[in-house]
């Protein structure tokens, strides 16, 4: 069963200068994949295009069997796509509980309190002071809130853009532990990560994006070899794309 698939996706900020230059891949239901690549490769742009935040110029995005190319982000959210952006991923001027309440609005009324409760159980840091402004949270706690917000609606596909960015090694461990638990519940995970080692503990498959194109799509084990990854990033192994 396919959860998410891209075919020849082109996307970016200017139709004459696509940042994502024809990317195709398929993610199976329940699978966890990680997207690696050098800075500026277009990882964030690609994931935002999938989430409906960046215009697509060509190709197709499918969520399950449905073509969702170019659908506005709120409709994607309603169709089971959870997305946590790399930065500015919570409303800092709203309280913690309000952040969760907004997300809960996507659920039928009777499910909302229960799901909010479940998220507060999962993230005790958030439960400690739910009425506080989210802007008062620490970097790690913000990532918790961002993840909790996305998980609350039980999306079929959860995409996270560098959830470990700026976190201490201890917190990175916590975040990935949480992601592993989430993945075990059968949620399809698409993870953009710079922290290659942490990402490889979680996912069995990696996509490497270099200059807007896929340079590698395959099992993660070969990537434990730092030299291989280094060559990929530099574009020396571009021929491996689409394996």
């Amino acid at each position, binding site marked *: 069963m396919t959860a998410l698939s891209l075919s020849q996706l082109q996307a970016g900020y200017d139709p004459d200068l696509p940042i994502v230059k024809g990317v195709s891949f398929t993610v199976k239901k329940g699978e966890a994949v990680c997207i690696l690549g050098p800075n500026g490769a277009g990882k964030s742009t690609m994931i935002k295009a999938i989430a409906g935040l960046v215009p697509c110029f060509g190709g197709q995005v499918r969520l399950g069997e449905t073509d969702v190319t170019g659908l506005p982000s709120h409709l994607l959210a309603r169709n089971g796509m959870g997305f946590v952006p790399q930065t*500015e991923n919570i409303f800092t001027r709203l309280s913690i509980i309000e952040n969760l309440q907004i997300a809960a609005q996507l659920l039928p009324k009777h499910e909302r309190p229960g799901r909010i409760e479940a998220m507060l159980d999962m993230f005790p840091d958030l439960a400690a002071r739910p009425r506080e402004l989210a802007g008062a949270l620490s970097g790690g706690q913000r990532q918790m809130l961002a993840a909790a917000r996305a998980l609350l609606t039980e999306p079929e596909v959860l995409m996270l853009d560098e959830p470990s960015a700026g976190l201490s090694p201890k917190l990175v461990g916590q975040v990935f532990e949480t992601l592993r638990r989430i993945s075990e519940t059968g949620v399809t995970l698409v993870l953009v990560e710079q922290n290659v080692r942490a990402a490889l503990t979680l996912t069995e498959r990696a996509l490497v994006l270099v200059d807007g194109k896929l340079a590698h799509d395959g099992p993660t084990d070969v990537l434990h070899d730092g030299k291989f990854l280094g060559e990929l990033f530099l574009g020396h192994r571009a021929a491996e794309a689409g394996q």
Partner: protein
Amino acid sequence: MNPQAIIDGLIAGSTIGLGAIGLTLTYSILRFANFTHGDFLAWGAYLTLTVAGVLGGLAAGLGAPVYPFSFGWGLPLAMLGGVALTVALTLGLDRVLFGKLRARGADAIIIVMASFGASMALRSLLEFIFTAKPVYFTKALQIAKPLGLGMRATPDQLLVIGLTALLVLALHLLVTYSATGRAMRAVSEDPGLAGVYGIDVAKVVRVTWIIGAGMACIAGVMAGLLVQIRPYMGFDLLLPLFSAAILGGIGSIPGAMLGGLIIGLSEAFAVQIIGAEWRAAISFVILVIVLMLRPQGLFGQKEA
């Protein structure tokens, strides 16, 4: 000093505050300074007057004043129609003008200039249809009743102050506690992230116009009832409206209202102390002082 300035200031401040609410909401959610907002007040007053005329033609009894006020049931009924028509006007304007520019990713300054042009067009249209001659909702005269401490007010004036307080309270509760209000605050912080959270931003934009236009129409009717209706009535209020919105803090409904009251009271006292010819300068002076001392306003949040 004459304590009557307090009543005069509260009355002027009610109109300014209600008008500033729409301005502060469009500023925080659509991210542009809407120069047509003053003209929405004038259009609201004229549209209400038109509906009142139609209603009066259908049922003459509606015009008979209801004690102790100077107007009959026709006016509040007509105001409901006026609100609906003003809302339709703003949603129409957003569809043909502002929404098109937003969709094209136009800079805020372009949208501001467009609103300036639309403001002139709307005002000229009013002059063309209704002429520049002032008109009135009612010809009935009202005696101001003593309130004690040397202050007097007519029943109409007290009604205006009471209705304003009620509307501001209702709106404040809506924005603070309802799902719609949460969505509005979310969009004002980050429209892109709002979409990711599942909020239909276009719907929030419509709600913003509906609230802003509704309050503008009611403010226009109040000003029309207590003073007079003329095509320039809203445009002349533009500077006080902006000053009130900025003084209160962009995005804050209680802030806009408090800002309106402060501007209204300052104007009333200035008229007494330094003379009526300086009235218009007051909002400008307050605006400059606020921008220098506390740019985020009384209730505004600093940019993160």
